[in-house]
């Protein structure tokens, strides 16, 4: 369970940092009057939707941290046989990186109100994300064809489970992305469009980060890395 505990420690760090700016040590019964008289208004200047997405991403991060924890605990048991990583995953990774870059471009363009670039970026991001999903499915098919079935070894089970869970999150993101894209073509209000493009970009970058982490995990580098760290410590 150490992975999830480290993750929660990071969350707790954020929460503690935020709380430390909330003047929790003050004596509220001594402070009367309108807020401004005593307190700089403490609501964040960020759009509410972004904060909402941020909280949601913390939950998603928690989910994958727990999968990782379970992965390491199950891995320690004797029947674990690592499975080979399909080469295709590298290509898929590339697709997802492209997708993130495209959304980042769209987001920059939305700030400058260059509608054509925004549309191009959104379309490119959507297509590459779909390409990623198709690639993942092909990787699954290749593995199954080679006899690495879901139930034949826990390493396989975790591979399908975690990649599947990540894929589902991409699918969910595509729903949001398609709404944004539709808005970009149908002439949504620029501020609104800008916000939703930024939200998509934020979500995409986070899922890219998750993907890189679980790719490292599934390929075994994460375990090797931890072993090295452990040896350095002892």
């Amino acid at each position, binding site marked *: *369970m150490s992975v*999830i*505990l480290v993750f*929660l420690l990071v*969350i*707790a760090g954020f*929460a503690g940092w935020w*709380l430390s*700016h*909330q*003047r*929790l*040590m*003050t*004596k*509220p*019964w*001594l*402070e*009367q*009057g*309108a*807020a*401004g*008289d*005593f*307190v*700089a*208004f*403490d*609501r*964040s*200047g960020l759009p*509410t*939707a972004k*904060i*909402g997405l941020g*909280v*949601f991403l*913390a*939950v998603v991060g*928690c*989910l994958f941290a*727990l*999968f990782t924890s*379970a992965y390491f*605990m*199950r891995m320690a*048991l*004797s*029947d*674990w046989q690592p499975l080979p990583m399909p080469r295709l995953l590298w290509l898929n990774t590339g697709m997802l990186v492209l997708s993130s870059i495209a959304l980042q471009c769209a987001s920059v363009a939305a700030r400058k109100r260059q509608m054509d670039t925004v549309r191009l970026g959104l379309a490119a991001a959507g297509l590459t994300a779909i390409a990623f999903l198709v690639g993942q499915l092909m990787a699954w098919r290749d593995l199954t064809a080679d006899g690495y079935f*879901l*139930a034949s070894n*826990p390493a396989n*089970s975790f591979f399908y*489970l975690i990649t599947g*869970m990540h894929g589902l999150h991409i699918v969910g993101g595509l729903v949001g992305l398609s709404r944004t894209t539709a808005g970009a073509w149908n002439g949504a209000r620029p501020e609104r469009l800008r916000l939703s493009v930024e939200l998509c970009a934020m979500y995409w970058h986070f899922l890219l980060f998750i993907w890189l982490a679980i790719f490292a995990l599934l390929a075994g580098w994460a375990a090797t890395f931890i072993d090295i760290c452990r040896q350095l410590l002892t």
Partner: protein
Amino acid sequence: MVDITPADAVPPAEVAEMELYHPHSWWTKYVFSQDAKVIAIQYSATATAIGLVALVLSWLMRLQLGFPGTFDFITPEAYYQFITMHGMIMVIYLLTALFLGGFGNYLIPLMVGARDMVFPYVNMLSYWIYLLAVLVLVSSFFAPGGPTGAGWTLYPPQAIMTGTPGGQEWGIILMLVSLILFIIGFTMGGLNYVVTVLQGRTRGMTLMRLPLTVWGIFTATVMALLAFPALFVACVMMLLDRALGTSFFMPAVVEMGEQLQHNGGSPILFQHLFWFFGHPEVYIVALPAFGIVSDLISTHARKNIFGYRMMVWAIVGIGALSFVVWAHHMYVSGMHPYFGFFFATTTLIIAIPTAIKVYNWVLTLWRGDIHLTIPMLFAMAFIVTFVNGGLTGLFLGNVVVDVPLSDTMFVVAHFHMVMGVAPILVIFGAIYHWYPKVTGRMLNETLGRFHFWVTFVGAYLIFFPMHYIGLMGVPRRYAEMTDVTVMTESAHHLNSFISIMAFIVGFAQIVFLFNLIWSIRHGREAGGNPWRATTLEWQTPQTPPAHGNFGKELPIVYRWAYDYSVPGAKEDFIPQNMPGTFGPSREPA
């Protein structure tokens, strides 16, 4: 230190009205409503309905335990199905949903001075997914093989094997699917509760001016958002083990003389995931109760809550600590014995902030002006049962004391007292307290007092003696205790007594339900602020609050939530939105 900005320098964006969704038809107003108050009532009604099912299940269990062998239709199989569904419904579908979905939805926007939740559409979806989860759960009663009888902890391998009711049929699958749906639905609601507290607060509502109810619900929601994923992961993996033959949790096992295909999995892994959710879950239920009871005591004792700052820190501290105590549910699970030292220490440390909260509640009563209203009575009953249950927690948290007591009726008595009876008493108190705001009428006083006395005294008489049955060594989850030699004849009589008390207490709840329905029409008119309370929900222009909560202008908050009996003020309460300076040695505005 934070810079002090003058009031007129607050940028206009901060006080901008949020875009409010307006219903256009009867359907969108009362059924697919996006108004948090309607959603709150939907959540509460659904939770109460499914809670009644769980109440009936507990009666059936008590029939069997109190009068073994008398009721033939309660087979061991049926008993385990009752016990499982009772536990799961009460913990997840009733308590969690009612505190966060019900009270959270109703009170957060009103108490922080917002027009609604920040994402009303997602909030609506949250309820409908919750309802779907409940329906899936209920459907398992009608599935072939009936609901699962794996115990609410759903421990594998047992949960998905033939020897357990529903293990190789539909019961366990429907249970897992229902839990997964619940978690998805809850996450949608939880985002709303958290972000509304972060971003929806009205001008002047700093964190330290929030009522403790909001602090409790807010912290509990943050915890739930981080803890429920653990249950989600456990459910998904168990579903795969059950449906597709993977071996996440399933080791090689022999089932009724035949080898199963599973290999090498770890049942302990499930327990870690389950309790990583399960322990915070205790506080997900307890923290809202802590918060609400603080407000009830303060309002009805006409005195500010004693040590507000300590109360806030304790809530946050308990929330954080509760993530590092989960394995105290696993002292005798066969995990590495050295974990016992760590988890016993963390568990007993968490008793300190909890004790501080108790002291501050009773110290609030000291030199107060105690009105013995029904909410106040329930609040005091909560303190009795919570202190009792919390103290027996010190037995079970102390690893070596847990060894003889774990998995006995002592545990059952402990957790019913601390997270069954105590939070439910708070829920009752809270309903008597806020019902006038929700409906505009008071609940009937006579029926209310009857309900209080029967529930409080009855529940105490049920669960206090039960500890001693556990102390004798009688294990929990025994459909029949007749063969247990340590269970003496007199203890069987005690069991019958407990059962009879359970029926009486259950009956009182039906009186309460009648009161809830009857008083909507016939209750005494309450007026806007019958308890003369300070917090914002009592200052709305209409009662019940209209769509948008606060009329044309959002209130501005000038003070904390506990200005009761301030020296120099004429009334014994000063609403949060009343300007002006009162009291001794205050820094001027």
